[in-house]
């Protein structure tokens, strides 16, 4: 089933065809011709028959939804949307008393963020299926999601950071995940921070922070923070193999512009990739060579024993200043406004993607080490040594396409780079720097992702394009469209488009991992005998009601299909009522929901063996129903109760009952 395609002509036409293709993209608009490169057997390659499972989990950023969505590959079926930085009325995340602390920051409770880059935890440089990290770009945070529960386990706020974009990339054993500030800012006391914007060069600084997740608990803390010249940090990746112990960050705005960056930060032919020796930084930190500075930030952690999140407010951070501590960071010139910063599986090559450059520079770690040893510098930038471009360069991929953004690897010596402006994926050989293949994407690809594609040992098989523009790819849904991803086979010499699938929010980056590495960790329910929630009811015997001033606490249980107690009286206007609901079920996939008429709150969705708390401030006198929202059995519609609300000051006796024809004991 072949159609005459612009894209096919492109491949045949090589470099000349490329320019013709660019001509069709004039005026900043993607080419929306209904081109398709799908071959006849694509359906068979993505079909996962009913009752069967996908080969890979695909963790996709929810972008400005603030969440992390999970898909199966190759089917593109959506499996779950995990609440991370944003409230989720479906699960009660951010609405239940237990989860509210997860979203606490020094600015107070924040119900939203802009999440960008999922990064799977690693062991020996390979994703291990234990955790997935994701950054919050707007109010700088990093979240850790437990892949046993598919729930957010901890969130740390990053002080002295403004726009946590260059994050949360991991070291080879997840000793650290990093945060690099997108926007440099003045730091320190109020007086030091209250300065004219035009004093950028003098007062604005960048930071990169190394966050340590505790291997057992998943609690996160900031190990150290490195001060850098004022610039914008974009993306980063850890070294591996020979470059283990180093971290590479792309930096743009070496012009240090603070207004109309579109023009003013695009003046220099080259910006930088920053090479950072994190082993050295770790050593300096250990030797007490850093400086502890006041910095308030939150570290939130979900305690699985109490089913309750806890917030810890931290007061200081350990800072390292490379102007005083030698051999910590080096700049490598990189054309032009680099975005992606990707390290190949061998750890020798670092690919900078200058999004405004018509080439892709590849740096050689061996040459970087030689240049450092020989002090082969072309100068310094704000006191930081700048290595000579030619001395650290493996070579350049010439005319790969327009707008190179990100690169991933197949583990067979090939790199795949996304081209935003020319809307395509370009495959090239790392050693030879030769373009081998190109396929169009629909439209304007941002990140791309290969299973394990930023690790030491990629699983390969597919590359997924995460596109910035959807246009006409799906049935139209008014002005706002679903975001779009596209799956390509990379098994053969030529990439092959297999499938389009819609995503939530802007998908940004994503990572995939064989399902077999995740599935054995799955938690199916919580053991009720290990539930240490202070208001747990281990059985209906422990349910009841208690008044503490105007606070009323109700301990309630759910099981198919009744709530105990289900007749509550003695509540008065002015009371604040807490329902502590324990789900007594001990089997997989039997959650119960809980909702109250008129509550200015979402529902609770309580997993088997879990206790969740619903806060309710009654505002009208009368009988108010509550019920289970999640169809649980043939008698789900009977799973309900009544609560009587009396006027303030009334003396109706406080009772909580379940009236059965048999007490059961």
């Amino acid at each position, binding site marked *: 089933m072949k159609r005459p395609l612009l894209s096919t002509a492109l491949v045949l036409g090589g470099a000349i065809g490329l320019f013709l293709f660019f001509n069709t993209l004039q005026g900043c608009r993607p080419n929306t011709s209904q081109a398709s490169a799908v071959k006849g057997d694509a359906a068979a390659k993505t079909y996962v028959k009913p009752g069967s499972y996908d080969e890979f989990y695909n963790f996709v950023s929810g972008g400005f939804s603030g969440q992390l969505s999970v898909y199966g590959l190759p089917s593109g079926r959506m499996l779950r949307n995990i609440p991370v930085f944003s409230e989720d009325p479906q699960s009660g995340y951010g609405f239940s008393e237990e989860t509210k602390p997860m979203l606490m920051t020094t600015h107070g409770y924040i119900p939203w963020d802009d999440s960008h880059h999922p990064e799977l935890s690693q062991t020996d440089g390979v994703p291990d299926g234990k955790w997935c990290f994701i950054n919050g770009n707007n109010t700088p945070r990093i979240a850790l999601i437990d892949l046993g529960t598919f729930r957010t386990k901890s969130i740390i706020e990053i002080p002295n950071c403004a726009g946590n974009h260059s994050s949360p990339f991991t070291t080879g054993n997840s000793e650290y995940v990093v945060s690099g500030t997108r926007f440099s800012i003045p730091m320190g006391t109020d007086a030091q921070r209250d300065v004219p914007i035009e004093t950028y060069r003098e007062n604005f600084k960048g930071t990169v922070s190394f966050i340590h997740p505790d291997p057992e608990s998943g609690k996160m803390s900031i190990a150290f923070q490195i001060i850098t010249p004022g610039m914008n940090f974009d993306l980063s990746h850890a070294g591996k193999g020979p470059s283990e112990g180093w971290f590479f960050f792309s930096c743009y705005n070496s012009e240090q512009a603070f207004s109309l960056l579109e023009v003013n930060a695009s003046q220099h032919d080259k910006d930088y990739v920053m090479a950072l020796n994190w082993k050295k930084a770790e050593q300096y930190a250990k030797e007490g060579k850093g400086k502890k500075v006041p910095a308030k930030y939150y570290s939130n952690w979900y305690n699985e024993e109490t089913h309750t999140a806890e917030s810890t407010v931290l007061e200081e951070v350990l800072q390292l200043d490379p102007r005083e501590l030698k051999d910590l960071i080096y700049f490598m010139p990189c054309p032009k406004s680099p975005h992606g910063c990707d390290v190949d599986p061998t750890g020798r090559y670092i690919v900078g993607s200058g999004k405004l450059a018509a080439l892709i520079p590849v740096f050689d770690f061996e040459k970087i080490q030689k240049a450092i040893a020989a002090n082969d510098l072309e100068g310094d930038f704000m006191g930081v040594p700048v290595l000579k471009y030619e001395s650290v360069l493996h070579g350049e991929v010439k005319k790969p396409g327009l707008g190179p953004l990100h690169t991933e690897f197949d583990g067979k010596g090939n790199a795949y780079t996304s081209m935003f402006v020319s809307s395509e994926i370009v495959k090239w050989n790392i050693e030879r720097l030769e373009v081998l293949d190109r396929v169009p994407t629909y439209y304007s690809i941002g990140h791309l992702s290969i299973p394990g594609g930023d690790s030491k040992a990629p699983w390969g098989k597919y590359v997924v394009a995460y596109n910035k523009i959807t246009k006409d790819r799906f049935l139209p849904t008014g002005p706002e469209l679903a975001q779009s991803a596209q799956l390509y086979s990379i098994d053969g010499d030529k990439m092959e488009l297999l499938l389009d699938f819609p995503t939530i929010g802007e998908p940004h980056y994503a990572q995939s991992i064989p399902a077999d590495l995740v599935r054995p960790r799955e938690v199916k329910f919580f053991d009720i005998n290990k539930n240490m929630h202070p208001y747990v009811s281990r059985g209906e015997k422990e349910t009841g009601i208690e008044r503490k001033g105007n606070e009323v606490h109700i301990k309630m249980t759910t099981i198919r299909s*009744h709530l105990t107690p289900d007749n509550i009286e003695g509540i008065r206007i002015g009371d604040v009522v807490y329902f502590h609901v324990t789900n007594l079920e*001990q*089997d997989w996939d039997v959650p119960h929901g809980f909702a109250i008429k008129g509550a200015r709150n979402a529902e609770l969705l309580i997993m088997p063996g879990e206790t969740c708390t619903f806060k309710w401030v009654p505002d009208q006198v009368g009988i108010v129903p509550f019920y289970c929202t999640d169809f649980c*059995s*043939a*008698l789900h519609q009977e799973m309900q109760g009544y609560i009587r609300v009396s006027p303030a000051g009334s003396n109706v006796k406080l009772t909580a009952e379940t009236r059965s*024809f*048999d007490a*059961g004991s």
Partner: protein
Amino acid sequence: MNTSRWPITTTLFVALTTLAACGGGAPANPSATQEGTPDASSGNATAKPGLITAADLTLGDINKDMAAKGETTYDVKCQACHSRGGNRVVGPGWKGLTTRREPAWIMNMIMNVDVMLADDPEAQKLLEECLVRMPNQNLTKDEARELLEFMRTL
């Protein structure tokens, strides 16, 4: 928490009369209903673990320690649906249950309820009556055995 501060007064109330009148409406093949639990390891058809047989169980005089442990499990995981008396709440009351049902059948209903509801005519008859699939409360074999011992005291 002091349970005396958490009084639940449970009064007799004929609330489940509608339930009693609903027998016979169950689907012919309970394993194919949407509440069925597919086997997690294969993702395909339900696998059938070995059921407990009479030969697996030895019943002597009632062991009070085991019965006491069984009662603790009952309070947490069973009481919400099963009374100690003879009447049904959600599922059957337990009074005299061990004289009506074989011990192995009871153990299998506790531990292998999905298989029982798929294959066992008596279990299917109960579902038609109660209309709520008995939950698998994920008891260990020891816990189930203790529960059986507790049932024998009723």
